[in-house]
């Protein structure tokens, strides 16, 4: 395995402690998803569930890395997902986020990204949209570690 190259695509394996995961096995975890669709290209920013909502814009990989994503971050919020590295036509993303802020009058925007550098682009997209919007809303950035830990939370 090469130790150089893009941290976002570097191959890694994580050892999980059986003792800490055994308690989770077999327990049905309730989904907190309250809408469809979720992909940012597919959503309508004016959909009813975005009106005045607390929105969490989540990088694609986050929900796989973060064990308690549904209960701790998605619950009570509306969602869109995107990948700042692989998705095309990201100017549309800027327009949709701007529309959330100005038209749907969302209450807050939380941007959840992975710690890999390429993921920062999603926060950049959100900030560009916020700069272009007329309204202002609080924007929070949550950075998730590769092994599902929270690296940091900060208000933009």
């Amino acid at each position, binding site marked *: 395995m090469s130790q150089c190259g893009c941290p976002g695509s570097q191959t890694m394996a994580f050892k999980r402690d059986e003792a800490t995961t055994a308690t989770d096995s077999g327990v049905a975890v309730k989904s907190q998803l309250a809408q469809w669709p979720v992909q940012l290209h597919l959503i309508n920013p004016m959909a009813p569930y975005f009106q005045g909502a607390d929105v969490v814009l989540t990088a694609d990989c986050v929900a796989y890395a973060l064990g308690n994503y549904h209960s701790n971050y998605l619950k009570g919020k509306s969602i869109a997902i995107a990948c700042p590295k692989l998705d095309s036509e990201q100017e549309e993303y800027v327009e949709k986020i701007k529309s959330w802020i100005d038209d749907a009058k969302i*209450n*807050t925007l939380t941007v959840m990204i992975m710690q890999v550098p390429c993921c920062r682009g999603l926060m950049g997209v959100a900030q560009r949209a916020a700069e272009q919007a007329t309204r202002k809303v*609080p924007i929070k950035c949550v950075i998730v570690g590769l092994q599902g830990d929270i690296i940091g939370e900060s*208000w933009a």
Partner: protein
Amino acid sequence: MTSNSKLNPENMTDVLGLYIKDVIDAYPAVGAVLATAGIGCVTCNVGTCLIKDVVSIHNLTEAQEQSLFAGIASVVFPGRTVSLPKTERKAQNLGVQQLSPPLQALVNEHTNIKRVLTLIPALSERIQKGFDAQSRQICTQVLSFIREYADRFHHAKEEDILFKFFDSGSDIIGVMCKEHEIGRNHVRAALAALEQNDATTFIEQLQAYGLLLTEHIRKEDEILYPWMNRELSDSQVGKLFSKFGAVDEEFGAKAKQYLGMMETLEKG
């Protein structure tokens, strides 16, 4: 003595349920123990918070909290071995956290208020022998800044909006509102003294206000707001931001005017 006093506590749980000032009055050495954990309640003007609430609001680590309880127990129950209770703790503690935008806005407003408070000693010195036309105008402007910017704009945001997100009956919110009221009384008295040409009383009242508000702001910046920041959900932060935005829009031009006045006062 305040009403929940039970100054013969049988254990540390009883102690945590007592008003802090009652405990400090009965066991003065507790004040020094609290100070080791950065809790400066000895100088508080009101002191009607329960010890358990004061401890909780300071976001101590479990080890710091147990060390504090052990210190208090050694004063209240000398020579006795008592079990130390554990307070309910939040599952996630990311350490020092950045304030959310609306709370940071209040801290920024505090910075402006403190800039005017720092002018009080020099102003007091200047009017010791009485008012002249120019010093009277400066005193009027200082009082105007305090009444409009610090009180009608900033304190109103706290009392009418921020505090309503929390239990309005809580001792800690009660203490903050009480200090606002004490401050208003000092300002009313200073204004009356100015109208009556009584420079001595004016200086006394303005200096008392300055001391009160300096300590009040320190408590809010270092203790109250960080605690509120931990308690507010993202959704509440958004609502707070929106409500503060409405006040800023309504008061905006006036606020700018007072900030201009502040800069003029600083230039002397």
